């Protein structure tokens, strides 16, 4: 593991920002610290950087315990949310700053800065000042500045938060490609799960100071370890009592869970219905266009669910009655998540063999 945190705790006054945080990140991984506001992700990042000191626990970077080391000797580069570029220096001087502090030779500095300017695609911008750059350009300069001293670890604090939506998409892709190309171990903090899923190799989900789960995006999606992750990653509708659904009566009454849109199949009037014995009745109370599909809001016996509907078919309207089949759902028991299948589907031999 290139980065390792062992049992980290940190409090600010009465507020506990980190509780027993432990995880490891392999060399070359692009990891995301993902979680809602106040979940402790930025605190973790700052502790790795050395901007905060943990109350207890150890932090290892490249097998070295860094708790007592100043940020500048940990071999890290840091990109701030608001860029924190030096307003009164040129782009060139900004990028060169870290190298100048380390007293590198002028020629070496020049070579490296020019190399980085080319890397970030701002070759002719060396003499400009940050005020003359757009948000996206500033972020790229911040990136170059952090990379200039060749750190082993790159830390980014919500790097796209201050950038407008359109540029954000491009910048996201650019950053991911850049980091992959350089092969540098990186951790970035975000509260936007789309961003985390799109960019990161690995996601560390934080909630209330704890690490809920660590894994690759598809793993987190398909096999959430905790109810929080199930809810936070991907879309899901919370369910108070999974035993209320047809085919799930075998479960303990009152067990909570969640239903993802793809766990449902909606049959409108005129559709051929699979497993007619297992479907339930629901009312459509919302129809929303989502670009590539329709999102239906359904109320099934008082339970609100979300389903997807193909644009190829005639869309149902609000108020229409539809038949809904619940293939599977998540059950939350003892803080753990398990996937339950509709019992009736196993028994039934009717229906078409569609791969679900």
């Amino acid at each position: 593991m290139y980065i390792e945190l062992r049992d980290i705790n940190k409090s600010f006054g009465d507020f506990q920002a980190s509780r027993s945080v432990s995880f490891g990140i392999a060399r070359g991984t692009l990891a995301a610290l993902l979680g809602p506001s106040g979940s402790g992700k930025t605190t973790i990042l700052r502790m790795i950087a050395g901007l905060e000191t943990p109350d207890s626990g150890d932090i290892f970077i490249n097998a070295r315990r860094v708790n007592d080391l100043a940020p500048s000797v940990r071999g890290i580069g840091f990109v701030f949310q608001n860029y924190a570029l030096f307003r009164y220096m040129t782009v060139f001087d900004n990028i060169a700053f870290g190298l100048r502090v380390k007293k590198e030779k002028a020629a070496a500095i020049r070579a490296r800065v020019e190399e980085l300017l080319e890397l970030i695609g701002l070759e002719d911008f060396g003499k400009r000042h940050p005020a003359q750059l757009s948000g996206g350009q500033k972020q790229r300069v911040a990136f170059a500045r952090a990379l200039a001293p060749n750190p082993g670890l790159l830390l980014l604090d919500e790097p796209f938060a201050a950038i407008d939506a359109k540029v954000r998409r491009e910048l996201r892709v650019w950053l991911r490609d850049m980091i992959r190309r350089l092969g540098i171990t990186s951790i970035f903090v975000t509260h936007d799960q789309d961003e985390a899923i799109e960019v990161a190799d690995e996601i560390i989900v934080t909630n209330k100071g704890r690490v809920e789960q660590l894994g690759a995006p598809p793993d987190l999606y398909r096999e959430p370890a905790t109810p929080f992750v199930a809810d936070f990653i991907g879309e899901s509708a919370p369910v108070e009592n999974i035993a209320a659904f047809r085919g799930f009566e075998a479960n303990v009454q009152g067990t909570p869970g969640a239903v993802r849109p793809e766990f449902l199949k909606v049959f409108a009037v005129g559709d051929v219905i699979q497993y007619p014995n297992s479907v339930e009745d629901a009312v459509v109370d919302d129809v929303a266009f989502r670009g590539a599909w329709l999102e239906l809001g359904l109320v099934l016996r008082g339970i609100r669910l979300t389903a997807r509907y193909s644009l190829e078919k005639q869309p149902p309207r609000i108020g229409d009655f539809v038949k809904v089949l619940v293939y599977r759902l998540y059950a939350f028991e003892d803080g753990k998540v398990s996937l339950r299948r509709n019992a009736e589907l196993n028994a039934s031999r009717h229906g078409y063999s569609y791969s679900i």
Partner: protein
Amino acid sequence: MSGKGKNAPRGASLWVPRLFIGISALFAAVMLILPLAVVLTEAFSSGLQVFLRAVSDIYARKALFLTLEATAASVFLNTVFGLAAAWVVTRYSFAGKGVLTTLIDIPFAVSPVIAGMIFILTFGRLSWLHPVLEEHGIRIVFATPGIILATVFVTIPFVAREVIPVLEARGTDEEQAAVLMGAGFFTIFRRVTFPHIRWALLYSVILCAARAMGEFGAVSVVSGHLRGKTNTLPLHVEILYSEYQFTAAFAVSSLLVAGAVIILTARNIVEFAARKEDSLNVH
């Protein structure tokens, strides 16, 4: 003034801006231009010879030198202190921070005469400090150090009060970034912090110099009025005036006026340059 009513909404009376301009002009004329004009006319009323004699008089020269010395010292010391205080107040949180900022403002609230008396009580013959000073032959009040102290005291708030808001508004992001990259304190101050406060600092230094040059009350109390030794320019003017040497008094005053003009010009240059830089950097 072309386009006097240019910015006024259509239909608004033109008399209001005219009235305000008139009031301002009248005020400026009476309070500012008139006294200056009187000083300069009186200074030369007996001819150039008298004027030159008055300003080149040995006591006038010594007073000028002392004023410059006190001004330079107070500017230097208050710049150092002001920067340090501003840094500490805006970058750290500690118990008593509010007390410090209030303390810094005290010279504004206290009459300079009181300040002078405080120094007499603290360093004068009747203070408990005196035996120690006597033993080492150190003279503070009724000597140049006392004058410098008094001048420093009345100008303490200037630098701190100008720099603190600028530092506060700016935030610490850039400095954190610099710390992360291993920059030492002085590097950070020189390359990251200072460029931000450059103009505010310059402006406050100018204000400080102006105030120091003209200081009378506090200096008068601690001076001892030793001719040729502890008389600053304003004190010397008072002496000339009470000796009925009115022309000479005005002549020496015109030196102070010249100093004021230099300072104001410097301030305008600073403001102009700051505004120019501001418009180039769209933050």
